[in-house]
């Protein structure tokens, strides 16, 4: 881990449709963190979605068509960095299944092997060193289930935060429990999802932290939307924005 020989000179940024449309500042912060470390960041303009929503709903043909378009946007053999564990997991873990037996299987498997979640990339490939310039603050982390259970990279976000001397990370009860988003699950089973996010908000708020930080915009949209609906003061923020805000001299 964290070997300098792994450091590429350029990377693709796979924005994810959620970040592109709803949380562009989180995406921009992720790109900025990589650029600041001296790596060229390329944003393929035609990119859209990894196909996950349809894949998880059972519509594999539709998922494949969208994934195929996405695959065509990242042709060169350089790392693909994704500011989301769930979309990174879709590409790195599920594309090989989705493309199995298809003519473009080899390309999909190749891209799966060079796709990394943002915090994973910052730690493992850039060995990112951070200097905290912010005021003392208390935060709580919600690690996305895909980062934890699918990619097994849950400690990357924690190790980045541990470098920030003025940041205290509070631990929530049942930190490994899902926030209840689950993509189309939250639409198909809104009441179960609603009960889950309620419990998650309670656990997060009980820490006394002022901000909840996560590596996935899906979780943040779910948790943030519920916090706002309930008029709670806890603020959601993507890890990239938080790291940039704490370490940017110009801020």
């Amino acid at each position: 881990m964290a070997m300098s020989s792994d450091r590429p000179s350029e990377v693709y940024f796979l924005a994810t449709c959620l970040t592109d449309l709803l949380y562009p500042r989180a995406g921009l912060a992720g790109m900025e963190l990589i650029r600041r470390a001296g790596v060229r960041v390329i944003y393929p303009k035609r990119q859209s979605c990894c196909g996950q929503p349809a894949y998880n709903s059972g519509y594999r043909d539709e998922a494949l068509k969208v994934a195929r378009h996405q695959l065509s946007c990242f042709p060169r053999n350089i790392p693909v960095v994704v500011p989301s564990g769930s979309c990174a997991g879709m590409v790195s873990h599920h594309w090989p299944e989705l493309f199995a037996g298809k003519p473009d299987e080899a390309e999909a498997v190749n891209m799966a092997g060079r796709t990394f979640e943002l915090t994973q990339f910052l730690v493992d490939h850039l060995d990112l060193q951070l200097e905290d310039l912010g005021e003392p603050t208390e935060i709580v982390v919600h690690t996305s289930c895909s980062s934890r259970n699918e990619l097994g990279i849950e400690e990357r976000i924690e190790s980045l935060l541990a470098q920030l001397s003025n940041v205290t990370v509070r631990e929530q009860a049942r930190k490994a429990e899902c926030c209840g988003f689950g993509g189309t699950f939250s639409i198909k089973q809104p009441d179960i999802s609603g009960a889950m996010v309620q419990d998650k908000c309670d656990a997060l708020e009980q820490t006394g932290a002022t901000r909840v930080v996560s590596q996935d915009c899906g979780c943040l949209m779910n948790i943030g939307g519920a916090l706002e609906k309930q008029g709670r003061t806890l603020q959601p923020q993507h890890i990239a924005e938080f790291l940039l805000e704490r370490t940017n001299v110009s801020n």
Partner: protein
Amino acid sequence: MSATNQSKAFQSRIGEALGNQQAHTNFRSAMNMLMENRLKQFPDQEELLHKRQRADAIRAHALRNLPTLLEKLEQKLVENGIQVHWAENGEEANALIHQLLSQAGARSVVKGKSMVSEEIDLNHYMEERGIKVLESDLGEFILQLAGETPSHIVMPAIHKSKQDIAELIHKHYPEHPYSEDVDTLTQQARQILRDKFCHADAGISGVNFMVAETGTLCLVENEGNGRMSTTVPPIHIAVTGIEKVVESLSDVPPLLELLTKSATGQPITAYFNMITRPRQRGEMDGPQEVHLVLLDNGRSHIRRDEELLDTLRCIRCGSCINHCPVYVQVGGHAYGTVYPGPIGSVLEPMRQGLDKIGALTSACSLCGACGQVCPVQIPLPKLINRLRAEAVTQQVETQGVKGQGSLRKLLEVWTWKGWRLIFGSGLRYRLFKLLATRLRRLTPPKMGGWSRYRTIAKPASRSLDEMAAKAGFDHE
């Protein structure tokens, strides 16, 4: 039940479950305890992974060689004096067991905890034919008094409070004074059951592992009721699924360790029974007859599919259930099936058909917690995803799960087709983005169930690709 009706019925059970705050609190504290207890037994995650890989390999090996092992098992059991019966489905299994009980003139039967007996609804079958089957596991005994079904495969009465239990025992056995003290309640149940064991005409049990090499039936339990049910009455009938076989005796300890630690966080249960033969000439105790009823009930069909086959590795520890964030919200009864939670959401649609109970697969956020804790590494999220795909598929194949394509709905089909049109083309997606960002004020303030619990996130005023270009990032 039609596909629409099953979904409606499932939603109504979910609604009822979510409305019961007390039950949620009970489930939450029970599951917290079970998860903590399990974790204490596995302090070293690397070692745990190694153990899970080993257990997975043992079970996978047994399933690959299932026909051979079952033959060997039957041969050994017969040598040992245990009579073997094969049942294609629940009806056949019940008829077989009923015949055995009738031949012996049995009227009163005690039964140890067995999920397979729930699967075939044994109690009702026998009761309808005048044979009373008494549940002797404390949890199952309580549920029998309440006229309910288990809400968990290991802790069947986990949804009951001690007040509920106190009332039930006092109502059915008024000679015992009302008490909410757990030890007193346990003693009362013990006294009631002890008498039944002594007078039962037959005992029925499940099986945890069957050893082909030696013809041994292994039974894991904590209360001693399993031992009583299988040794005191003159006849013991064991009933289990064909997948429970393992090749050799040395396969048992690694599985047993993971079973008890994963299930309840116990290094070993209070009782572990190894049943090899009926009472021999000159022996003072033990049943004169031992029977084993081996149930298929769709297992052979599942085994033929190389992906679904993984489900049969299950050793019924319930760990996936204990760690499921959906189960903890809705409890076991909401599933409306014998097996609830993640394993139930995979097993039941395979067993009953997607047209009957495929809706269960929707009650999963695919968080993956179940797959992480499964002691035999069943890829539960992957299987749920596969079943979702089969439920909406257009290409119905004979090989797959029953009820393929039964949950395919036109509105959904067209939604995904529309989604594919937009997201499958760079040009159309960019146009969509332009509209969504420029017309963000027109974002609907409500979106079905989503906005019941959350505010709506509006598109940003500029998408990331516009912002990235402005910030001097390269496009390609």
